[in-house]
């Protein structure tokens, strides 16, 4: 591939590629955030089979998963503004990257919701029963009991999708926003050398992938729940003694 590929060009292009990283990170960051919030909400609605909402959610997920993201971008980019115009809201002054955030946010939400749903279903029913018996509300149950146990199951799949998303934001380029892959393509268009730009992008993505993995490893360990906590909430013993007296139940004597 001598004439097609040279390391010199990789180094030459790399700073330019790197300069587009913030755009990519912002898109991925926002999409992941929206995806997690909305994805959790959708998963919750579907697992709990909340009438109407869960059907709407199912159609939404099916549509988003089933259609190319390009088509979704078209709907968001052209359809939504004209709809809003009909109700007298003018969004023409919005930065176009907002439409990219919305599109990727919705897209991520649909895919993540299925991952989260799968993980929720893997939590033993006894955990739900314990919450009910303690009188927790549904949302308390999800936030405090189910979700912490879901993390370990959902994390690996979540990690792959997130890294994949880094490479996928290139849709932004079709409407003129230059992310990492877009930059590689733009360079390719000017210099006729695409390979080197992509290699630079790959180096970036691999680095991010490694960082993300480290973070997830830590999370996974924390969510393991098989090792005693090191630190814990401690109270002054004085108040403890007072409380004992107040409650007035005798301490049970051993033996």
């Amino acid at each position: 591939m001598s004439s097609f590929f040279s390391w010199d060009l990789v180094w030459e292009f790399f700073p330019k590629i790197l300069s587009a990283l913030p755009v990519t990170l912002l898109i991925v960051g926002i999409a992941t955030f929206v995806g997690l919030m909305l994805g959790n909400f959708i998963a919750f609605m579907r697992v709990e089979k909340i009438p109407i909402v869960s059907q709407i959610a199912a159609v939404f997920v099916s549509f988003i998963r089933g259609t190319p993201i390009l088509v979704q971008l078209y709907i968001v980019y052209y359809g939504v503004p004209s709809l809003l115009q009909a109700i007298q809201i003018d969004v023409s002054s919005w930065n176009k990257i907002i439409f990219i955030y919305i599109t990727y946010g919705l897209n991520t939400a649909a895919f993540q919701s299925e991952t989260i749903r799968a993980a929720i279903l893997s939590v033993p029913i006894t955990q739900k029963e314990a919450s009910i018996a303690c009188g927790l509300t549904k949302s308390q149950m999800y936030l405090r009991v189910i979700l912490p146990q879901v993390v370990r199951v959902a994390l690996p799949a979540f990690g792959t999708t997130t890294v994949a998303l880094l490479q996928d934001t290139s849709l932004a380029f079709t409407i003129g926003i230059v992310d990492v892959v877009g930059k590689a393509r733009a360079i390719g268009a000017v210099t006729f050398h695409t390979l080197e730009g992509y290699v630079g992008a790959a180096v970036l993505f691999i680095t991010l992938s490694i960082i993300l993995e480290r973070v997830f490893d830590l999370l996974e360990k924390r969510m393991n729940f098989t090792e005693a906590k090191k630190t814990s909430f401690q109270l002054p013993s004085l108040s403890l003694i007072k409380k004992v007296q107040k409650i007035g139940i005798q301490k049970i004597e051993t033996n």
Partner: protein
Amino acid sequence: MMEVRNIQKRFGKQEVLKGINMEVAKGEVVTLLGPSGSGKTTFLRCLNFLERADEGSIVLGETETIVNKANAKEILAHQRQTAMVFQNFALFQNKTARENIVMPLLLTKNKTKQEAYELADVLLEQVGLSERQDFYPSQLSGGQQQRIGIARALALNPKVILFDEPTSALDPELVGQTLTLLRDIAETGATMVLVTHEMKFAYEVSDKIIFMENGQVVEQGTPKEVFEQTKEERTKAFLTRFTNQMAR
């Protein structure tokens, strides 16, 4: 205090509860006895709406809840006035022993952190697990998990506490202690329904005994009536081993 009317429950074609009636006065301890598979656990679960019975109603305090009509809000209100200790412990796997007690207090009783932690510490002390407070359930022995389950239920200070075999994983020493504990609780006016296979325990702690078989109440009365003046043949057969033991 609590009145249960005609609770029926089916799993598919199989009738597991065939119309159970029960009355529990405030501060009373009612024990359910009966052979394995007779529906005791299912009954307790119905009382707490973990399982929705097909028929019947439950009166708790002043409010009657008709089981097959209750909405989510009524059910939650009902559940907040009851607590349950599970046969399989059912502790929150992602919480330490102490957090298992603290969390429900913070979320359902509007306690301050300080109050919740203090109460938890007292209860941990009572069940003899202060040292293990920062362990996760998966690191605790069966008996230790059982005791955390009991402590969690007690912390909630509900109108009625439901116990499913609270002593099954406990050693004799702890059974004795738990007996004392339950009696103390009963004295503070709490009302309890419990399932146990420990006859001696049932005999000592209960105000009323209900003997179930095959999803039906066969016999009920005070411990004395049921154990010593047993009316039904079925109950007699069941109790043989215990009475033998007492006679030794």
